[in-house]
């Protein structure tokens, strides 16, 4: 009895202490490194270059592996693999530029040509030498974060190199932030002040190849691209400043790693951790798309709803004014007549009336609806705006009288007091 309880509640956490946290650390390092680089790709409009490089480095991996094998240190953690793949990434970046500049082929096609060719070359190498070397293409493509697991609780093999790469990246971004910013935003200005655009580009490509290769064993080539672009693209929805975008990216990378691990290990999904991290990242993108402060669908919907409500309210007040004869003590307006005039549904009218009453613009009695003093002032300002705009259109745009009413009907809701004073100094409210 006690033993089974122990198995259910205690053992997983002991496992967690031994295995789980190093894996999470590994995932965070990978996704932060990829995410930070991805920010620059996103703002440069080069997101697909990550995809290209992740495929194009395959021959470099194989060559590096064969070199390592030759020296008798064959392992997927051999530095030769990082060197070979980074060099191949740089070759790919140079080839893409070369094909683009020296032929009629545009950049997207140039990417397509270079990365598939290099990948094909890599596949040929793998099939040719697979017998001699224990290289698993599946691991390169799909990754296996558990590969890093070491059951004795020490740090997994990949953590230290990944931590070094992330530190170098952060240092590089801090030191070279200005050149990266200026060569990205305005390359011609960069050249004109003597900053080497090519060095910045190829520097970024080298860092990208290195990071992608180092991430392969954890998440695989295909998912690496997801971790590269999704956090940066999500961060872009939350801020309009590049510096803050980098911080948001780090936050999203960490949160999606945690959520991904939870999905993979704690839920019943029991699936590849790398895939779950990427899926969690996409989830965060969708949530951000909905709720981000300015770019989000929700905030845009709220802005439009506020505007629609304002227009409804103003149309109500204006129509009450139109249905009321000019008198010292005007009679109340019948709700049904008002509704027909406005083409509102009964429910809509009730809601608008409620909002107007709450705002103190009108009062409802047994006799009907009357505007309060505030309501009258608002109604006069609207009428003023309407007349002023009609006059302005007739006078300055030379529109015939029958053209101006509908235009003014629409624009009166948008004319603020200062604009109004500018266009119609002499027009009197009715």
């Amino acid at each position: 009895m006690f033993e089974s309880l122990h198995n259910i509640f205690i053992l997983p956490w002991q496992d967690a202490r031994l295995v789980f946290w190093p894996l999470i650390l590994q995932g965070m390092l990978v996704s932060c490194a990829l995410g930070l680089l991805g920010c620059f790709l996103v703002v440069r409009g080069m997101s697909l270059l990550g995809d290209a490089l992740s495929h194009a480095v395959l021959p470099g991996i194989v060559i590096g592996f064969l070199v390592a094998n030759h020296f008798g240190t064959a392992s997927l953690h051999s530095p030769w693999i990082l060197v070979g793949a980074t060099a191949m990434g740089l070759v790919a970046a140079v080839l893409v530029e070369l094909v683009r500049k020296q032929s009629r082929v545009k950049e997207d096609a140039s990417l397509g040509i270079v990365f598939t060719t290099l990948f094909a070359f890599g596949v040929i190498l793998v099939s040719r030498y697979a017998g001699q070397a224990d290289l698993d293409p599946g691991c390169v493509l799909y990754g296996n974060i558990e590969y890093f697991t070491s059951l004795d609780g020490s740090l997994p093999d990949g953590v230290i190199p990944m931590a070094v790469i992330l530190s170098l990246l952060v240092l590089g971004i801090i030191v070279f932030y200005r050149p990266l910013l200026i060569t990205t935003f305005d390359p011609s200005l960069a050249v004109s002040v003597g900053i080497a655009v090519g060095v910045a580009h190829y520097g970024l490509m080298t860092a990208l190849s290195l990071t992608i290769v180092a991430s392969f064993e954890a998440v695989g080539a295909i998912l690496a691209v997801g971790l590269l672009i999704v956090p940066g693209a999500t961060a872009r929805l939350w801020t309009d400043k590049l510096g803050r975008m980098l911080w948001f990216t780090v936050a999203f990378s960490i949160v999606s790693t945690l959520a991904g691990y939870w999905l993979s290990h704690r839920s019943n999904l029991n699936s590849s951790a790398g895939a779950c991290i990427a899926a969690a990242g996409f989830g965060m993108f969708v949530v951000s798309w909905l709720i981000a402060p300015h770019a989000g669908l929700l905030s845009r919907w709220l802005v439009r709803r506020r505007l629609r409500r304002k227009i409804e309210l103003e149309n109500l007040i204006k129509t009450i004014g139109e249905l009321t004869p000019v008198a010292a003590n005007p009679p109340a307006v019948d709700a049904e007549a008002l509704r027909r005039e406005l083409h509102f549904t009964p429910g809509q009218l009730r809601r608008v009336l409620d909002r107007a009453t709450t705002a103190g613009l009108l009062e409802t009695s047994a006799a009907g609806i009357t505007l309060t003093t505030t309501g009258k002032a608002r109604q006069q300002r609207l009428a003023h705006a309407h007349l002023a705009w009609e006059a302005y259109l007739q006078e300055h745009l030379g529109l015939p009288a029958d053209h101006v009413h509908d235009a003014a009907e629409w624009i009166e809701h948008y004319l603020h007091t200062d604009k109004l004073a500018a266009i119609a100094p002499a027009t009197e409210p009715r």
Partner: protein
Amino acid sequence: MNALSTSDAPAMEVHDLTVSYHRRPVLWNVDLAVPAGTLVGIVGPNGAGKSTLIKAVMGLLPLSSGWVQVFGSPIDTMRKKVAYVPQRESVDWTFPVTAMDVVLMGRFGHVRWWQRIGRHDREIARESLAKVGMLGFADRQISNLSGGQQQRVFLARALAQQSDLYLMDEPFAGVDAATESAIMTLLQELRTAGKTVLVVHHDLQTAEQYFDMLILLNMRLVAFGPTAEVFTPTLLQQTYGGRLTILSEVADAVARAERGEKETLRNGITTPEKL
């Protein structure tokens, strides 16, 4: 040339400059010596090579022949003395930076890569924004600015570079009348302060009143001189005159020859077998 004469060197000197795009020459054998302290307009029809001229001076394009000097020295040694304002459309205005960030980029050439952008640089950037009437928009993301405001930000960035020679590519393109007159006032202030300003300009009607000197360009230098002397019907006719000039026909022939086609021009010039 001795040391004394360099102080009298022209603000910008171009000698026998030829520039090609994809082997097709677009600017032929241009000679220019722009004196310091002048406000110069570069005018000519579409495709005349106006932008190409200032890009070539800035070293943004490779030269097919000739050389460029700024205040008597090669451009690479004089980068701090020259500010370049590219066409507004050349950058991505949805980029996540504020107007202030863009203007601060004008200071990047003045600080070493390990140095920080300091208070002094921010002060200069703020002053520059104020001069173009954009200080109130310093923290706006640049996509929230109108076309005229974006152009003002670009000018503020050039001001922040505190250079002696300003090369501007169509600063009046697509801006409102208020911005145009604000820019013009600014350019005159720069000239009064002894700076040299070259402006690629599209509108012939205003060119005459805006500039001290004009560069009339149509693939070659048609004329360069004080506005009163070169803004003449004859020279303008030569610049804008009618149909394709012989130069663009030859340029086409060069491009065709590079593609491997052999062809005889209408007027009997045979493309060279090999260039």
